[in-house]
Every structure is written in structure tokens, then in C-alpha cells.
């Protein structure tokens, strides 16, 4: 994971379920670049977390869960977005928290399929709002090389990722 996008992993149950959160901040450029103002169309800006990056957050949450099942020894790569359905009219505005919950439906040596639900939390009112359902497939690429060669070192679960584990008060796996 060369680019950690989550803030904290708050729950993880080996081989079954993980929950991670990502806060949306006004200070992030990305929220202002998505649906910026368009005076010609008479549209004001709508700062929000782009849905594509919500999918990325879900992929990282589920990817951590799949990696954790084998103590992060496998290189876990997102192989397929099977489904990504967002609630109409719901957007992740600055000041809200995105909560990703990933569940492994099936896993074998070659990969895993996961179901994901995404909710929006209002840290002030404690309201929780359904946001999206996102289903993903992951490949253990060392088991699916198909003639391709990859670096021997684990370029998925890097030191940056281990810092995320530290920030989540989760133990690093042996050897890291």
C-alpha cells in the first residue's frame, strides 16, 4: 500500500471483518476539486470526497482484512470492483467521517471476494447515514503470476502501512 488513504482501522477480526474510518477535511484539496463551481452552468462549488476515492478507501479497508488473514505475507492486489452503488443525493462533505466495513465472503489461495458497506457519520450529532455498498475481488498475485514477474519484497504492505497499524493500536506482524 504505497498510498495509505485510511485514518484508522478501528476493528479487525481475522479472516472475517474489518472496520476503518476516514475523516473528510475542508483542508484537503481533493474535496474542492470535485464539483468545483461552474459559473456558466450557474453552479456553485460542492466540496465533497469524490466517490472514486470512497471506493479506494473501501479497497484499502478490505485489502487490509485480506492481508491480515495471512499476516500480510501475501501481496494483496485489488483485481475487480464487482459492484459500487451509492445512495442517491448523499455526499461525503467536509466535517463528516466515512466508515468502511468490509466482510470476506470467500477466500482461497488465489484470492478473496469481499462485501463492503460504507456509512457517513456526523461526529457532532452522532447520526449515521448509509452511503454505499461496494463489493470487491482481490488477487494474491504471487499465486496468479500468469507469466508476470513481481518484486520479491512486499510492495503492498509497506512501512507506511505499518505506521497505519501503529496509529490503529494494532500489532505489527512478525518480521515488520
Amino acid at each position, binding site marked *: 500500500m504505497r498510498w495509505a488513504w485510511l485514518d484508522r482501522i478501528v476493528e479487525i477480526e481475522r479472516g472475517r471483518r474489518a472496520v476503518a474510518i476516514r475523516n473528510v477535511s475542508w483542508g484537503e484539496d481533493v474535496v474542492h476539486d470535485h464539483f468545483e463551481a461552474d459559473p456558466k452552468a450557474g453552479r456553485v462549488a460542492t466540496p465533497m470526497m469524490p466517490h472514486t476515492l470512497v471506493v479506494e478507501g473501501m479497497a484499502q479497508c478490505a485489502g487490509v482484512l485480506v492481508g491480515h488473514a495471512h499476516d500480510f505475507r501475501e501481496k494483496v492486489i485489488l483485481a475487480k470492483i464487482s459492484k459500487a452503488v451509492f445512495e442517491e443525493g448523499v455526499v461525503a462533505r467536509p466535517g463528516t467521517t466515512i466508515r468502511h466495513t468490509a466482510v470476506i465472503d470467500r477466500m482461497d489461495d488465489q*484470492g478473496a471476494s469481499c462485501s463492503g458497506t460504507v456509512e457517513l457519520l456526523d461526529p457532532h450529532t452522532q447520526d449515521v447515514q448509509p452511503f454505499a455498498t461496494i463489493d470487491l*475481488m482481490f488477487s494474491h498475485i504471487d499465486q496468479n503470476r500468469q507469466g508476470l514477474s513481481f518484486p520479491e519484497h512486499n510492495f503492498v504492505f509497506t512501512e507506511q502501512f505499518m505506521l497505519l497499524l501503529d496509529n490503529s493500536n494494532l500489532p505489527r506482524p512478525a518480521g515488520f
Partner: protein
Amino acid sequence: MSMSYDDVLAKITEVLEDALGVDEDEVTPTATLGPDLGAESIDYLDIVFRLEKAFGIKIDQAEMMPNDVLNDPQYVQDGKITDKGIDELKAKMPHADLSAIEGSRDVEDFEKVFTVDTIVKFVQSKLD
């Protein structure tokens, strides 16, 4: 628990619609998963997982698609499947019609074996 060909086909059609994003009318018994329906490598694993859930069966991917045969030099030489390779595939894939590769013997033609009909017969064999 055995099921009729048509009942299995109907369920598999739903599986392929969800896994590959294809329309119901594209899923005919003669359609190939790769060339006709656009399945890529990870899709086969997705399909295996979905078949297990839909039919309540356990599937080893190598059982449905013995790709290991194609990586074995005694079964494939210079990109062509040997007589021993054909025999091995017949033994491992009794559910499949191998006529698509028996003529050319070309490894590249192997994905033509994976028709919807092949999958239906494979699932039926698992249910019997």
C-alpha cells in the same frame, strides 16, 4: 441433489450476468466465457466463488479449469498440446467438449473450451 440442465443454466445465467455484467440474452450454451462474454483471469475466480454460493457446492478452481496441465512441459510443447496433454485434459475435464482444441492443439484456443455449456455440465456433475 440433481438439477435439470435448464434449471442449472438459469442459475448460471444469473451468476454470469452479475460476475461479467453481461445481458441475459448473451448467455447461451455455446457462448465462450472469454472470447464471447469478456471474462478475464480474475473473473474465473469470481465465477467459482459465485457458483459455490449459488449452488451450495465446493469447487476447487483447478478442478473446473485445470490450467496446471498447460504449464506442464510434458503436456505442452512449442505452444501445442501433446497427445498426452489431450488425454490428461479429457481425464480432468469429463464435463468439457474439447473439440475446440483437438484440431489446432493450440494452447491459445484453450479458453474456447470454456463455454456456458461446459460450466453447466460441470456444476451438474458436482450436484449429482
